[in-house]
């Protein structure tokens, strides 16, 4: 492939939206209220829309007759590049919100930088996505505040979720080789420069939500290199079921 670094870079971005979209889609019809149900489905819908833009572009770069669906659904576990954070399960609504919040703050800052990409397609996609993601960030931040400040029970649940998910936050700022190459070309975003502000923003909000900022400095990574938690395999078996069972068909 002529432009392998860009291709891999796109997968890295898109897989986050793909896997998180899949997780949010699981909740459809099962939300704690009709309004939150609609909001979660809406976030899922936005993320899959973004996925399509990225993978259509990736398919064009690959130039080997693969479609957006082949790229989304026909890779093996180790070829998915999403961060570990987004594949974590919907243990309860606090985990769903915590995962969304910890990702959204990053996602929004990332897209703001991606808009400046010298690759015009990428910058156009970022420009479209950022409007959606700023809504996601507002939604998840508001809910962290509600659950943190709400009742003793909700505060405890939200705190547990943040404590458990915290270990996956540092990976957001880890650079792969494709990332570095793309940063050097002015196409990609240097995620390392987003880190300080990310934690500042997250910590402020947690404090506002009367939650404690976890002190743990032990972090997990590996997703960007395709080494995932055990949760991803099950998510992929759902995602890939139709394409694997009925190969080479149109739907």
């Amino acid at each position, binding site marked *: 492939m002529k432009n392998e670094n860009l291709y891999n870079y796109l997968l890295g971005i898109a897989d986050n939206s793909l896997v998180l979209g*899949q997780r949010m*889609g*699981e909740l*459809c*019809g*099962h*939300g*704690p*209220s*009709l*309004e*939150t*149900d*609609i909001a979660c*489905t*809406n976030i*899922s*819908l936005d993320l*899959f*829309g973004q*996925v*399509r833009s990225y*993978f259509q572009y990736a398919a064009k770069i690959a130039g080997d007759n693969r479609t*957006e*669906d082949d790229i*989304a*659904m026909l890779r093996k576990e180790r070829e998915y590049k999403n961060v570990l954070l987004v594949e974590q399960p919907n243990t*309860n*609504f606090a985990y769903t919100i915590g995962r969304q919040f910890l990702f959204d703050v990053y996602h929004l800052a990332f897209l703001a930088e991606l808009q400046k990409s010298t690759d015009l397609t990428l910058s156009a996609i970022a420009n479209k996505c950022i409007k959606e993601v700023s809504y996601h960030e507002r939604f998840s931040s508001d809910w962290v*505040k*509600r*659950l943190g*400040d*709400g*009742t003793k*029970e*909700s505060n405890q*649940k939200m705190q547990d979720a943040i404590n458990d998910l915290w270990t996956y936050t540092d990976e957001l700022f880890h650079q792969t080789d494709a990332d570095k190459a793309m940063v050097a070309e002015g196409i990609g975003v240097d995620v390392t420069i987003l880190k300080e502000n990310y934690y500042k923003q997250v910590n402020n909000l947690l404090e506002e939500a009367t939650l404690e900022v976890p002190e743990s400095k032990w972090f997990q990574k590996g997703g960007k290199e395709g080494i995932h938690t055990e949760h991803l395999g099950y*998510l992929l078996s*759902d*995602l890939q*079921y*139709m*394409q694997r069972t*009925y190969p080479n*068909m*149109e*739907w």
Partner: protein
Amino acid sequence: MSEEQIKNLEKQFDERIARDEKIEPKDWMPEKYRKTHIRQMSQHAHSEIVGMLPEGNWITRAPSLRRKVALLAKVQDEAGHGLYLYSATETLGVSRDELYEQLHTGKAKYSSIFNYPTVTWADMGAIGWLVDGAAIINQVPLCNTSYGPYARAMIRVCKEESFHQRQGYEIMIKLANGTPEQKEMAQDALNRWWWPSLMMLGPTDDVSVHTEQSMKWKLKRKSNDDLRQQFIDQTVPQADLIGLTIPDPDLKWNDERGSYDFGDIDWDEFWQVVKGHGPCNKERMKARVGAWEEGEWVRDAAMAHAEKKKERNQKQAV
């Protein structure tokens, strides 16, 4: 109020409806009118919400990104219809929580069709094509119903439903024109959803209760049997067009009537499902009640936060 006065009001009320005037929430209305509307509108809202489950079942497994996005959007529309219809029902002086309570305790019904399982992807096509198709036939006349909030809700709902119906049929076209395996999947879905879809139009006229009063209030404009005939006449050519066979050996065009004759509907099955013993009645209720109970701490937290925020704001103002 004297009996005489009430009679007078009822007379004026009936005349307004006969003149095609809309009844609005603050207008006087007979208690029976209010109750009947609460029942029918909430049943409709519940159907939208429970109806999210069989289709939600395929969101994570949709075969392509395009189909996944369309399915998500469709199920989201249904949630939106539910929200809209609950709000319209609340204008009659009942709260959404009370309506949920009725659903969760089995006091209120929802459309029985959603008690059938969605076992293959083709069911997403069949539901859109047949179930939404039947729903539209039921609902289009309601755009002119007498109760204003319901009529206005139905105008919006019907627009979206007709889009869903086309979307479902398009899934079926694709499958019917696909590989033999895909075509078989489509035929199998049609076989399973055809009869329950006919049942959706309600019991036959001779056993249907409420019809006469509902006709007067424009809650119903055509009889169940007429609606069913309309649905069959409209759907059979669509099946023919894509080479699928309606699973009814007695189905035959009747030149004289200008309609299709069709075989006997298994009403025992219908009543079995209505009475709670269909293939998925228990699962659907378990999912709804489960979501509600598991969500209680979230709703409590939102309320508590809102209260605290209000207090803080008041303190600040002082």
